[in-house]
């Protein structure tokens, strides 16, 4: 009996031992797959990866990869949508029934994805032991990118939420109390960025934000606030730096093989190189723009966005010193040269340049399709100059700020300060490139009107028109809207006091109790 019991106990205890003692740290299961915030942010390589990720935020769908062109170019009087997607058509008509409509919610949300990446750099990089010069630069880059996001948010939504720390599940940063508060925030970021950014980059750093980029954006930020003096101080600094000059050929600004050139102040980088057929954050995923596909003409792209025909007339208002049409017309738009009232001239280079894709004109392509033949399509940023199709992988960098914009902006600031003659000098630099005659002797108010023309012809389809309309006050009163209506019937459904801002997506109003923009309640 004794033996029996002892035997059992031995058996029992050995069993228990076996099942209990194998893994002392059984309940501590570290992540075997990926780094965490605790294990990351240790050295300069980590800091560099962090800032690369922040730049990558500019490529999101709601930013320069896709929707921002709908927000700006199509909602302005330059463009519109006749997409078969009715909500998208309505979007450019300022009609939203669902405030979480994809374009609206992704625009808003993706800007904050980008901001969160900047905020992580700003929160974690200061604690890293690393080269101080590089650290200063990386922090300045993060502030520049963050400022650019807020520039867009304030322009579209008026009173965004001011997130300044890495997001956590319960992070509830304050909503800006006024537009002015956002502009002040942007100015602060850009001043810091300007102080920490290098003047140029070389090698694999090319494409990062420079001191010039921060200065130019700061100038534009002041300008949007109509702080002409402060703005012109900044823009003058960019001009006098001597770092920038206009590209000899206007069209080089919209090609994938002439990127980061002398005229470029800041570009969002895109490339068609990808190995994985997806556009999220994944090894080998796409780093390309989708604008060309969405604005491409029928059979080549989706044609979800197109141009208003008054743009053609705007280009036709002036001829070059050699009596030809403004070459920027052919660079900006595709259209049938047989359209009613168009002064076709077979000898004019603009009218010779009427073929796109497959060496066909629109008249040839849509010989039996009057509707598609007579539409006006965006050519800027399309790939017709080297390809016969469009696709989701356009490699063309988006030029956020071009030097010609700096010149025209400075001209406007100077003119507003009464320095009309100085302003004309700058405008003439832009005009000469495309062969237009110099301006002279315009009054302040005449130049104001002239500048509106200059900015359209130089910058149409480059997202700036919306900012211009805002700055010129055309979006604030019925007189302005009536003017815009005459060019773009989308403004028939624009409501003064409401449509200047997009509605804040329903999710954020519902969950976080954000104040909805006026008129959208």
């Amino acid at each position, binding site marked *: *009996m004794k033996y029996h019991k002892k035997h059992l106990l031995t058996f029992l205890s050995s069993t228990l031992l076996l099942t209990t003692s194998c893994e002392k740290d059984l309940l501590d299961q570290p992540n075997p797959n990926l780094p965490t915030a605790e294990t990351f942010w240790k050295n300069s390589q980590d800091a560099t990866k962090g800032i690369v990720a922040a730049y990558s935020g500019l490529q999101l769908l709601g930013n320069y990869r896709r929707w921002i062109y709908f927000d700006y170019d199509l909602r302005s009087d330059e463009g519109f949508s006749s997409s078969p997607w009715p909500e998208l058509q309505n979007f450019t008509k300022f009609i939203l029934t*669902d405030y979480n409509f994809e374009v609206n919610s992704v625009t808003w949300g993706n800007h904050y994805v980008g901001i969160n990446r900047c905020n992580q750099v700003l929160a974690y990089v200061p604690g890293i032991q690393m080269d101080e010069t590089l650290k200063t630069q990386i922090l300045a880059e993060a502030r520049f990118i963050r400022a650019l996001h807020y520039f867009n948010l304030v322009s579209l939504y008026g009173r965004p939420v001011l*997130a300044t720390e890495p997001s956590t599940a319960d992070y509830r940063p304050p909503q800006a109390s006024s537009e002015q508060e956002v502009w002040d925030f942007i100015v602060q970021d850009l001043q810091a960025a300007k102080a920490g950014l290098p003047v140029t980059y070389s090698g694999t750093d090319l494409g990062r934000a420079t001191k010039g980029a921060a200065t130019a954006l700061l100038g534009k930020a002041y300008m949007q606030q109509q702080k002409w003096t402060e703005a012109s101080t900044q823009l003058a600094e960019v001009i006098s730096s001597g770092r920038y000059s206009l590209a000899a050929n206007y069209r080089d600004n919209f090609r994938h093989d002439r990127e980061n050139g002398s005229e470029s102040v800041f570009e969002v980088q895109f490339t068609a190189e990808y190995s994985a057929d997806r556009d999220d954050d994944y090894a080998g995923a796409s780093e390309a723009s989708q604008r060309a596909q969405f604005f491409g003409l029928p059979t080549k792209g989706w044609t979800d966005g197109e141009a208003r025909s008054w743009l053609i007339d705007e280009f036709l208002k002036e001829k070059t010193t050699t009596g030809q049409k403004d070459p920027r017309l052919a660079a900006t738009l595709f259209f049938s040269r047989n359209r009613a009232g168009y002064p076709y001239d077979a000898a004019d280079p603009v009218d010779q340049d009427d073929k796109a894709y497959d060496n066909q004109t629109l008249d040839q392509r849509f010989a039996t399709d009057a509707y598609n033949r007579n539409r006006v399509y965006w050519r800027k940023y399309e790939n017709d100059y080297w390809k016969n199709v469009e696709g989701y992988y356009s490699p063309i960098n988006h030029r956020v700020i071009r030097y010609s914009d700096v010149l025209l902006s400075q001209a406007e600031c100077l003119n507003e300060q009464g320095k009309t003659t100085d302003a004309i000098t700058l405008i003439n630099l832009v005009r000469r490139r495309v062969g237009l005659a110099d301006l002279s002797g315009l009054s302040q108010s005449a130049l104001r009107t002239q500048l509106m023309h200059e900015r359209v012809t130089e910058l149409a389809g480059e997202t700036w028109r919306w900012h211009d309309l805002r700055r010129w006050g055309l979006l604030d009163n019925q007189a302005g809207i009536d003017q815009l209506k005459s060019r773009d019937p989308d403004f028939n459904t624009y409501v003064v006091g409401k449509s200047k801002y997009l509605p804040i997506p329903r999710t954020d109003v519902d969950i976080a109790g954000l104040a909805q923009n006026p008129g959208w309640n």
Partner: protein
Amino acid sequence: MPTLLYFLPLSVLVAPGAEAAGMRVTELVRAVAPAQTVTGRVVDEKGQGMPGVTVLEKGTSNGATTDGDGRYSLTVADNAILTFSFVGYLTQEVAVNGRTSVDINLAPDSKALNEVVVVGYLRLPTEQVTGSVTQVNQEQIRRAPVASVTEALQGRAAGVQVANSGAPGQNPIVNIRGVGSIQLGSSPLYIVDGVWTNEIRDINPSDIESSTILKDAASLAPYGSRGANGVIIITTRRGKQGKPAFNFNGYAGVQNIAHTYDLAGTAQWADITRQMYENAGQTPFSGAANPPAINTDWQKALIQSGRVQSYNLGLSGASESANYNVSAGYFNQKGTIVGPKFERYSVRVNTGANRGRFRIEQSAQFSRAMTTRVNGLPFIDVLRMLPIIPVRDSATVSGYGFGNTNQITFGTNPIGQQDVYNNTNLENRLIGSLAPEIKLFDFLTYRLNLGMEYVGFLDRTESKYGQAGGLRMNEPIRPAQLYESRGERIFLLAENTLNFQRTFGKHNVNAVAGYTEQKNTIRNTVADAQGFGTGPTYYWSLGAATGSASVGGGTNKWAKRSYLGQVAYDFDDRYLVTGAVRRDGSSLVDPVNKWGTFSAFSLGWRISREAFFENVPLFSDLKLRASYGQLGNDNLSEYLYQRILNPNVNYPLGGGASQPVQNGATQNQLSSNDLRWEKRKTTNFGFDASFLDNRLTLAADYYISRTTDALVNPAIPLYEGNVGGNPFTNLGELENRGFEFQAGYQNTTGNFRYGANANLTTLRNRVTQLAFEGQNYTSGPGGVTRTVVGQPVGAFYLMHMLGIFQTQAEIDAYEKQPNAKPGDVKYEDLNNDGVISDADRRFTGSPFPKLQYGFNLTLGYKNFDLAALFQGVQGNDIYNVTRYWTDRMDDNGNFRADIRPWTPSNPSTTTPRPLLGGGQNALMITDRWLENGAYLRLKNLQVSYSLPKTITEKLAGVGSVRFTLTAQNLLTFTKYTGYDPEIVGAGSLARGVDEGNYPNVRTITGGLQVGF
């Protein structure tokens, strides 16, 4: 390595040691007294010989089993005491006193209505159960011609909600006592022969011996952090004493979709579409202006007749010291739409042995299941495709017709989608347990339960050239692509328990203490490659890819360690008390909250055992019971609390032609901070009664269960910039309460047998607290549901349609929709702010049935049997997304054939005018799409005929032959206009939404069961 250590060597170690111990016991006893042989016969209450009765020499392992006629023979000491035992009969002890012949009459045990029930780590006689426990018998389960046990449980047990879809290979959604979690998994824990698992789709229903559903805290506390959602214990068949028995059962039949929409043909469609464009002041596209001579019936093209077949072959038997059951099954289902199918092979081996104080039970099932999945939302797309689009169109890259500028629709060709994508899942699964047990003393048993589940899986999608771009307007045409995700999941379980059982006078104690460990590891490798040409012949191997390729994969692990104790005590079978506690440590929650303790207790009073109750003739038994306790839910995925970086947030820098992509890293997805267990506190009151010599049984329960620290991952503000799934937090509290009734009646009159079972469940689900005032979670397509305090989880939050504006005067008088035109929808200004906007929403309808019921009727006459199960729900509403598509008339798609849009000459009060772009006419967030979801369904009807013994006796070797004719989902009574009122919902926060749910199928099968 460590996992193997704690798992494998035990079985090696256990066997020799225990065997030695067992032999020693026998030898010791034999040394005491001279032996003699006793023979005899055991008969039942009707005087018939009872086979399989265990005859034991008391205090030893020396025993025998009666033969087919009830006879036994055993050599015992001449002063031995013999015990005769048989399930359902009172055990008798008889002293031999030198006799050589002992005959016995065994009397049925009236209190053992059923056998013992497993509750936690104890096996209790049913009359001692004080919690809420429901058993569903195996015959009922096997009656349903379905792939899984859970499907067969539907309507059979009070308090158990099962939601099926008709998709082959589906895994039904099962909720016990409502939704206990706002967003975490609310599925119960399944325990199959001692192994914990989250799904039992591939457990062959034909192998089931019993299924027990544990519902209240007292029964569930032993499962601690996995108990909150209820537990379903499945035991599989073991060999029964007697000669080896072969049996075969099989059935085959057809399946179809009982109800489809009556959709517009080309002429009607074109007419409404033209109105839609003209009302918006636009020119209709050419296909609507001049429709071609095509009239495609998309539903007919998609839906086909399905078939189902199932065959099972088994061999089982047992001797007094060993038992075995070996069975093999095959199940095959071809979908009721083109494409999907499901096929499963399974093999089960269950064995057991006992010798002396040592006992071991083994069970294992291997299954191989192959599913071809449904792609996309075909039941929505058939409504969106236009009748002028041909199913096949040689002009497109895929060969399938779809929208273009002449035939605008953004619907996807659903037939092409099933063909262009071949999306399959393969699962090889081994689930099994090995449980050695040793009786240390008569009152103390040590049991080691080792369980494992191994799943080897392969998910594979072959996408032919023309995927997306060849099926839907404006999608990019993507190259042919092959995706494979291959991996394995291994779950290991080791449970050490010491079981104490002893009677002290009138005090009975049954207790258990244990220590357990669990570990789960998933590893997978993902590969994705493009470039397989343009067909029609494809070589679907990764090595054949000529285009870009990418890889992924990883390892996820979690582990749990637990201490547990459970006690059942009764005094004189009259006063019953149980208690249980479990302390769990888990790697899934934030390390600061790693440990959690869960406990419960219950009380029972068997009034029928009281002296004063003896004179109440009606009752055979009456028991009152109550329980209270706290359970947990940790249905989380790994590493959620960690702030994980995405290592591939890349950006091209450096310019030039190469523009090298540089590697960036950031935390894209927010972490879930401070995660704790979700806790569920349940109070239960109930009674069990039986009448008329147990012919009529009745059980009723009332419960209140409160979930606190509910883990939710609500939508967070977009300005948080989160990418990927939202973080979890312990925010909510919610409450479920309800009544459950279960009644049964069985009787036999001459050749006529009849019985009825009914169950009824009421449910009230309410969110009682969220993180802060006004917090809500929006879900469902278009955000039609909202989860807030005071409403059920996933309540409908919608605008209210008042009717249709008939005249401009009416619009002018209303003032609130100044832009409306006659024929537009009129909405109620619920917030009285003078304008109609999405602020004018209210809570309406109910996503949960207020009442659900099942009614099971069995009739038998001689060799014929009939069984019918009716099942239904009442008091719920369904948001019908399919009707949104047929009726919206603001975007291109097809329409109901009986739609009569408003026109000046047809002043409809329910259907607005067609209007492209629609303004407010076709808002999703309105109650225009909400419908009554009540239904009554003849879920199962079975007629069977058994060949009489006189015939089977003439067939050599055949024991029994039974023919069956079965219909599943034969009849449905409902007002719901969609495909099927039985829906699985659109996620846990939108379970009342029918987003093109694959309708349940009507199945008619013929079957045969043969025993040899």
